């Protein structure tokens, strides 16, 4: 018979995880859909009452997104323009019900190839804070997610925050999602970008990430390298820039389509980033 724990202090939660593995539940929006028609009886750690994990905190160098931050919390938070892309992703997750309950951390931990939060967080160079009863560590998001529904989280660890370092001055961001209907749709492709403008209309820093086109969303580093330092006008992505992607055929689209659409979306994202707000 499974037990259900809903501690109110982080220490208790980490203690419980230290004693043995448990299914962590935050907003439940991935948890329950994965258990349709099944008896739900595993040992659960419900982290929703952990006050310490709420809220978005802005420190000098970085922004810390607490593990219980929901998509709606993020949308409502007053944040700088380089969060616009992530906010756009938040507005396109599921319907409002899912945005009100689902957390960014849950999205990252669930590690779906189509997780809409991941490309923006990758483009923001986000790091994942993992806490256990005896240690805290930080990993770059790109290392944390290792595959389709696989992460580096140890059984005794809880993701306590996502940490976003501040990009350069004037940074802006964008997010484009392609799905086969308007609301509540799993992405066929999504593209996120962050651009830091430099002097003389040049690109000082550029980061582009593509989701749903490989097991784990990927940054397009060759594209980023090619365009950084170039003028903000004629920046064009080429098919070879998509080399890191490995799309597959599935019910939502063919691999060939994904590659083609990804290129279109990357170009559109670049075009948007080039236009000063």
């Amino acid at each position, binding site marked *: 018979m499974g037990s*259900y724990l809903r501690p109110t202090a982080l220490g208790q939660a980490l203690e419980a995880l230290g004693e043995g593995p448990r299914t962590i539940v935050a907003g439940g929006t991935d948890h*329950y859909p994965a258990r349709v028609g099944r008896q*739900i009886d595993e040992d659960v750690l419900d982290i929703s009452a952990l006050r310490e994990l709420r809220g978005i905190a802005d420190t000098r160098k970085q922004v810390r997104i607490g593990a219980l931050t929901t998509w709606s919390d993020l949308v409502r938070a007053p944040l700088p323009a380089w969060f616009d892309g992530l906010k756009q992703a938040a507005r396109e997750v599921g*319907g*409002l019900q899912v945005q009100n309950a689902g957390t960014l951390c849950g999205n990252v931990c669930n590690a779906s190839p189509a997780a809409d939060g991941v490309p923006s967080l990758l483009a923001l160079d986000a790091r994942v804070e993992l806490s256990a009863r005896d240690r805290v560590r930080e990993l770059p998001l790109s290392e944390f997610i290792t595959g389709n529904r696989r992460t580096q989280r140890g059984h005794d660890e809880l993701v306590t925050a996502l940490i976003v370092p501040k990009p350069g001055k004037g940074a802006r961001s964008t997010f484009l999602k*392609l799905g086969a209907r308007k609301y509540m749709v799993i992405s066929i492709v999504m593209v996120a970008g962050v651009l830091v403008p430099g002097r003389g209309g040049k690109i000082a820093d550029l980061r582009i990430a593509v989701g749903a086109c490989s097991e784990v969303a990927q940054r397009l580093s060759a594209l980023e390298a090619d365009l950084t330092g170039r003028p903000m006008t004629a920046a064009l992505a080429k098919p070879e820039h998509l080399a890191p992607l490995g799309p597959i055929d599935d019910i939502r689209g063919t691999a060939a*389509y994904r590659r083609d659409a990804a290129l279109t979306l990357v170009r559109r994202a670049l075009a948007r980033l080039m236009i000063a707000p």
Partner: protein
Amino acid sequence: MKRESRTVEFTLNGAAVSAAVDPGSRLSEVLREDLGLKGTKVGCEAGDCGACTVLLDGEQVCACMVPAGQVAGRDVTTVEGLAAKGGLNALQQAFHRHGAAQCGICTPGMLMAASDLLRRNAKPNRRAVMDALGGVLCRCTGYRKIVEAILDVAKAQAPPVDPPAGAAVGARLAKIDGQAKLTGVEAFGDDVAPRDALLLRVARAPYARARFTIGTLDRLYADHPGLLRVLTADDVPGNNGFGIYPHIKDQPVLAEDRVRYRGEAVLALVGEAAAVRAIPEEEIPILWYAQEAVAGIEAALAPDAPAVQEDKPDNVLTRGRLVKGDVEAGFAAADHVVEGAWQTGFVEHAYIEPEAGCARRVGDRIEVTVTTQAPYMDRDETAQVLGVAPEQVRIVPSACGGGFGGKLDVSVQPLLALAAWLTGRPVRCAYTRPESMAASTKRHPARITARAGCTDEGEITAFRFHGDFNTGAYASWGPTVADRVPVHCTGPYFVPNVAASSTAVLTNEPPAGAFRGFGVPQAALAHEALMDMMAEQAGIDPIEFRIKNAMAAGLETATGQRLEASVGLVDCLEKVQPYWEDWRTAAVMRNAVKKTVKRGVGVGCMWYGCGNTSISNPSTMTVGVSRDGRVTLYNGVADIGQGSNTIMVQICADALGVPAGTVGYVMGDTDRTADAGKSSASRQTFVSGKAAELAGADLRAQVLRLTNAGPKAEIKIGKRRIVVRDGADRHEIDLAALPELAAGDVLRGSGTFDPPTTKLDENGQGTPYGTYGFAAQIAEVEVDVDLGTVKVRRMVAAHDVGRAINPVQVEGQIHGGIAQGLGLALMEEYLPGRTENLHDYLIPTVGDMPEIEVIIVEDPEPLGPYGAKGIGEPALIPTAPAILGAIYQATGLRMTRLPVTPDRLRAAILARERDGGND
């Protein structure tokens, strides 16, 4: 094993509650099962449908994804908490006025999502409303009236006034069962079971074709003490087979030693709910021997294909055929000949309410309360499975949360009846969403080739058609599709020479059955594209071309039936024509400057025979007056959201000559109503409506006869007497003085109507239907040519319905039909084992719907009640052809494979670029 319960204290609809619950269970389950609040609906348990939407601390969430433990100390509002008992708040009133609830299963979720919005924003704009409703699916309404209702809440409005006697037909009367749907009181299939009911759970085939054996069940019983009975094929006392046709009962209730599609029922576990739920799938001792399955029409028709059903070695279930005139001569006379091939996939009904019901044994009778479209068919089917007389079975339809053809075949009925029969206890069952999708029938995938010819003047001379329809593992409605398609294959046009054929092909795929249109929507893709192609070759505008060839009164159809009246197609086309010209011109001008997003406008027409094809399909209605002056319509029609409860009362009230508001009704209970057939084939308004009219007229005639009053006399039914005024004369009938006839009634009128049809001969010639509906729709789309995405921006739909008994409901049917047609055109394709949920199988959301202008054309049908005929299926048929036509104007591509998903359209665009041509 269920977790230990814990006390959770929270505020529910303003009152403090303290409930001992499993904190890890879904809030939806706690609300419905532990606290008995059934207003919160469950359509998927996966966050996909939003039917379970409630407010948590004022914000909308899906109750199926909230752990019960998380509501501790918080505030939960459900639909039951929106207004004081018996009343409606401003939002609910707006829903009522606008006809925003059809079946009503999505309504609680819609209301809660809208409440969340209105709390934040009292005067939202359209965009905000759509964003707020984005997470709630509706399969009936096309969302238009829901959005309008929410935009209208802020405006205070006088409550609607009931029409006076004689003015109900044609009135925009609010649904007479609307209130219950808006307050959460309405009981659907999973809301009817008593608390102590046993649970039935079906074990289903994981393979599309396999043999199996069932091992010993001792272990299962021993490990799960609450498990009372495992039902297998051996337990079926009567015939272990069901099917629509009296002579084809080919689908086993429980498979015997082999299965023919993934999702087929193999055995049923019956016992205490918690125990039955807790049994892990892998503990059920079924030993499988998987075999190579026959997937798709091509594989089934291959010379060496294994037989899906042993007695049909060629995998052909049935063939349809029609020959009129001399098709070769017709093609020889043509100046232009066009042809094409089309392909569609399985389409899922995706009603938001999965199959559900409850059965109990009462002595030597069995009563099944169930969500259904066909109470009398259910009764006879259940009886033959139990091996009892039909009179021993009582079917009581619950409210039905959407059917669209999918609830015409039995699902839970025979299983529940069997379980209750054998255990003597009430037994309930509700399919999970994946189970519903795997087990239930689908729209037939079609493979169509067609060819048509016309003269330079644009006169059609010949039409040839062949359609193969994948009917899946069992017959279901396959023969109906094979019969209906050839009759309709030319579209609503006069064609002198026709040769048409159809084949229903068996495969190891889900049984394809009835789905809004019975194969006609697939055939319409072909005839409408051919019309466009001929028009283009002849250099005639597509609408002019259609008008030139339109079916009209006095002309003969492909079956040689001379249509006498009510053929409003030209009128429909002329009504959409002004929009067509404006939109087409605007698109051309815009496309000249826009490179990426191209617009296009297309047209689709249809005709549709109301009622069963060439067979008798009578309806009988009875209306009674009780001693205390209550008028009751005994209405055997299952209201599946289309609104027949309201329509039948409107018709009957006018025929009787009393206000509609004074007529009560009993819906579909086989013990209390006569057989009014099934709610399908767009027949209920036409056929049962006529019976309701005749019943009302019969009762009126009796009243007039008893009082010797003339035909114009006014009838007033009071508490104990009927007062009849005939000019200056006043007569009275003392109801107390009359002997009781039945069920407390002292007067009864009844009416039966069976539309006049004849059998079709070996060339498919004859009179298959009593009347036909006609329509023209136009659609404007926007195509992003770089991504292959299509957005339908706006549509105009002109439908000849004979007479709109209730215009609100006609509009609602059209909106909903367009939504399903749009889904068929652009996104819906069911793949067994791969899209068995509502996030991989996509149906349109509120954000996918175009603006829609509905134009009701009334060319009265002399046979129908007050001139009315059907609208249910006609609403969907022209939509996909209109969208495909629009995509053609936007891109120059004639898409022939549905759905036109972004990847398919983009691939076609790229292929054309590669070929450098325009083909």
